[in-house]
């Protein structure tokens, strides 16, 4: 299967198109079947992935507009591989657990298109293809929030769309400028990201370009102070929308930093460490405190999600393999854990049609299974060792300690503040006496819900105990990236800051090879 990546990208979309002719009663089965196939394909990708190769694999390249250097150019490395698997996994599980019945056919088709755009973003190695999928991903999400959302759905979906779209446009200008510079230097046009890597830019260019890309990515992450679209988006989106948004769409932003900003502008990235770290610390502490003040369970998870993204951002700019690998791992962990938490909140919402914490209390007595799974996810969310949440968070903090001990300690308060807001939810929703009449008749998780959550619980524990199968390929690619950045950096400060692991084996690295 040489063109496995193309299959991964377009299979969901084609299946989505065919979905229009599928009967309404069997569309759910159809949709789940398609996502299962895509998921299996992505697993196949993992098994046939060469773990010792840190460069791009399964590369496909078809020139589209040769004069402009635009081509259909795909590939994966250890960093994108697992984000793709996360995408296929969460789409599959999200769809399987979906309780939505209104316009189910449209929902399934929208989700399949969304899956295409998300995979597309993570496999694209051509900036134009990347941008195409990046922007296309907004459309299905706009539709999901706007059509199936809560009372404020129109406001929330437009805000989501316009905000992220504005950021992307600035990023597009940056991309065009890089291509233009590339043309000026080499005399040929190219939009291939791997070609761009080879371009050594003067500091001033790097800074401006870094800023342009930063706006596009930062809004997506979302970094403080660009985060205010997310409480509305989560607050209004249906469960499946929140799951995909938190698990995958936000990762596009952080992934963008790894794919573009770090290798293309190493000096600017090093210069940006402090400002980005400050914003990340604000995200970690400030949004964790806001999460504590929330009255709505889903908003707690939404803000906690922003807080955790702060940790991921911090790791990206640790400039050492510990922090950067930890950050990529944390992207996966956050995807699974926050996805599961949104699913759990969705399940309780379906039963009671409210998400207000004050409406609950003592639920453990009537919904023990629900409470146990929520407890496991809570522990993963607060970063308990032997759960998936610990590995990434620990590595990020460890890595960033090398950059700044004081900032690491401030970021480390996330393990305290995270426990504070999550335990508050646990206490007021699950503990205490069961007083409200409506809650006494609540049913525990049914088979569909249980079986869509159990795989996530299994992953949370498996990757907490034995993260190696995932961490090793990530680490290989991260080491390659850092070695590359170190060689490419032009300022001494940047070279000093970037730490290449001693254990890195240079013969395995082939960054930027086609």
């Amino acid at each position: 299967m040489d063109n496995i990546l193309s299959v991964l990208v377009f299979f969901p979309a084609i299946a989505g198109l065919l979905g229009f002719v599928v009967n309404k009663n069997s569309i759910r089965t159809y949709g789940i079947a398609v996502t299962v196939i895509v998921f299996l394909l992505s697993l196949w990708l993992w098994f046939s992935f060469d773990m010792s190769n840190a460069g791009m694999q399964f590369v496909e390249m078809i020139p589209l507009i040769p004069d402009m250097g635009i081509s259909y150019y795909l590939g994966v490395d250890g960093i994108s591989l697992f984000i793709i698997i996360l995408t296929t996994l969460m789409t599959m599980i999200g769809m399987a657990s979906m309780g939505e019945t209104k316009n189910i056919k449209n929902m399934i088709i929208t989700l399949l298109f969304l899956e295409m755009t998300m995979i597309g973003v993570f496999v694209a190695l051509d900036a134009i293809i990347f941008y195409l999928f990046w922007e296309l991903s907004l459309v299905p999400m706009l539709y999901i929030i706007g059509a199936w959302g809560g009372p404020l759905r129109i406001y929330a979906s437009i805000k989501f769309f316009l905000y992220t779209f504005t950021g992307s446009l600035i990023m597009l200008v940056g991309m065009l400028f890089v291509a233009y510079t590339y043309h000026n230097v080499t005399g040929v046009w190219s939009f291939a990201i791997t070609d761009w890597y080879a371009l050594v830019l003067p500091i001033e260019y790097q800074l401006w370009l870094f800023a342009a890309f930063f706006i596009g990515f930062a809004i997506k992450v979302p970094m403080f102070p660009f985060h205010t679209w997310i409480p509305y988006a989560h607050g209004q989106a249906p469960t499946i929308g929140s799951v995909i948004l938190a698990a995958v769409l936000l990762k596009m932003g952080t992934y963008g930093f790894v794919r573009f900003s770090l290798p293309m502008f190493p000096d600017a990235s090093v210069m940006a460490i402090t400002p980005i770290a400050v914003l990340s610390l604000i995200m970690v502490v400030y949004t964790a405190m806001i999460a504590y003040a929330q009255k709505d369970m889903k908003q707690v998870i939404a803000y906690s999600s922003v807080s955790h993204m702060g940790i991921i951002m911090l790791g990206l700019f640790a400039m050492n393999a510990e922090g950067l690998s930890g950050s990529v791992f944390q992207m996966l962990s956050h995807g699974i854990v926050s996805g599961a938490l949104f699913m759990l909140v969705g399940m309780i919402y379906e039963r009671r049609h409210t998400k207000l914490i004050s409406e609950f209390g003592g639920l453990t007595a009537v919904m023990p299974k629900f409470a146990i799974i929520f407890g496991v996810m809570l522990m993963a969310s607060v970063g308990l060792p032997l759960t998936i949440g610990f590995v990434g968070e620990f590595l990020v903090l460890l890595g960033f300690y090398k950059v700044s001990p004081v900032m690491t300690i401030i970021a480390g308060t996330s393990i305290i503040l995270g426990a504070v807001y999550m335990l508050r939810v646990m206490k007021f929703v699950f503990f205490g006496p069961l007083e409200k009449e409506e809650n006494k008749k609540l049913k525990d998780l049914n088979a569909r819900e249980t079986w869509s959550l159990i795989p996530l619980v299994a992953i949370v524990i498996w990757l907490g105990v034995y993260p190696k199968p995932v961490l090793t390929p990530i680490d290989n690619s991260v080491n390659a990236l850092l070695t590359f950045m170190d060689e490419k950096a032009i300022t001494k400060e940047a070279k000093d800051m970037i730490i290449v692991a001693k254990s890195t084996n240079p013969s395995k690295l082939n960054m930027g090879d086609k």
Partner: protein
Amino acid sequence: MESLVYVALFAPFVGSLFASLFGMSERQIFVGVVASLLLFISFLASALLAANLYITGDVIHITMMDWISAGDFNVAFGFVVDQISVTMMTVVTLVSTIVHIYAIGYMDHDKSFNRFFSYLSAFVFSMMILVMSDNFLGLFIGWEGVGVCSWLLVGFWYHKPDQDRKDNPSISPSWAANEAFIMNRIADLGMLVGIFILYWNTGSLQYDEVFAKLPELSESVLVGAAIALFIGAMGKSAQFPLHTWLTDAMEGPTPVSALIHAATMVTAGVFLVVRSNPLYSMEEVAGVSMFIASLGTFVAFYAASMALVERDLKRIIAYSTLSQLGYMFAAAGLGAYWIALFHLAAHAFFKALLFLGGGNVMHAMHDELDLFKMGDLRKKMRGTWLYMGFASIALVGLPPLAGFWSKDAIIETAFNEHTYILWIMLVITAGMTAFYSFRQVFLSFHGEDRHTALGFHPHEMYKFVLAAMFPLAVLALITGWFMSSYKEFIYKIGESVQYEMSDHTHHLAIYLALMVIFIVLSSITFAYFKYARTGEKAWKRDEEKEQGFFYKLLINQYYVPKFYEEFITKPYAMISEVFWTKIDLKIVDATVDNIAKFFYATGDKTRSMQTGNLSNYLNWMAVGAMILLGVAAISAMIGLGGIDG
């Protein structure tokens, strides 16, 4: 021998999994029995390992599998069985086995019986990881694991509602559980920082590799690591100012209090300091060690003072645990690591016994813990009375019981180090310990019968439960007799744990001990005359005295919980609210919306240009052309050329 290590480690885990299979079903006695048996197997394995180590002196070090590796960072699941860890393993599994058997009787009527055993065994498993790991991160797994189990077990009766602090100082089990978890997390951050410091300066987290590199490190690094790790220890071992969670944790079932909050988990901090003894015994960190000793002494005194007026049986024992932890830290801080470890073991036995006895009383009194409502229980609960009296004698440190040997050695150490202020405080604390321990024994088991009038009909605990407690009583008696052979055993680990008294101290030792014994005996006599008598001279509650300044200060725990509530919890909630409603919604988000509105309004206003009138459009075109010309002229003047790479 390697397989024994795995048996010791994983038997409790199997027990926990087994119990959790029945977690949601009805009470099944065999669940408790199987869990207890597996723990007993774990104990046998630990004891065999200890015996093997004692005879052959071979330290077992195994690596099970890789855990986290990224960049140069590499940590595996590795375990080491040396003199320090095997001491902990044996103590932990032994006390756990007894507490498990005890719990079969104690939790008899609880509908969540199976769930309880699943948590309790999971706790033992975490504790074993904590003590057996060969690296700091492995220790941290256990560290957090016991934290979670403690959270689950303190909040075991999660359905109880919150009460006012006046009616119940712990508010509710779920509140106390969260308090414990969060307070420990604050300390854990310190511990993580310690781990970061060690990793970036030694390139490893494995004990032997880290310790080997210590002499090469600079003073600031060593001091930083020592402080950071000790902050971690302060949380788990409830040292001031992170101590309030321990007394509130008494909301959990009594077997939990005995096992976790007296015998094992809370001693993890002491264990950490003892484990890191090569670090703490370095000359560069002498200041930190002195601070540890001083804080320990302070906590010993501080906690004992609060126990003097407490009415709640379990909270008194909790204060005494806190106080004894202070003793252990005093010893460790002064460099007598092995004495700290020995007191840890001895304390685990007699304190567990004391707590389980307290559990019997609680069981008999239908969860009533107020000493003022008891009195004269010894006639109805003879066995429990004997056990608790015996454990109290051990606790206050009268020979020949365990507490005498270990505690006396600590007091002697303080004298030997010429830290006379610490020494005096530890001696006074010994007197206070004697008073509050026997105040509690006399108020509950002696004096006038106050409970019958209140409608209590206490009865003795099941026979098998009393029998299960017997080994603890034996250990509380004999442990001290093995002090010198233990010393010989642990000295093999290296020079840093060895501690000898000077000749001068050695000569005075007997007088010092006699002095302490005298103080202890007079305190007990005083308590006897005040609380144990019947008839005319019987103790009466003195409401007036309870209004006194010192009484109120002590009964309110020096207003520390109140302070935390007023100056931390409430402001935190308030600031969070302000961040959300005032800053996030009113400033950050409003700015975004205003920018959007501005564009919308601009569009709306300029729409009037689109009149459809051709001459109007021509006018606008002219304006546009002029502006473009102007821009071109200006940029040409200041020399903004194109970019040519």
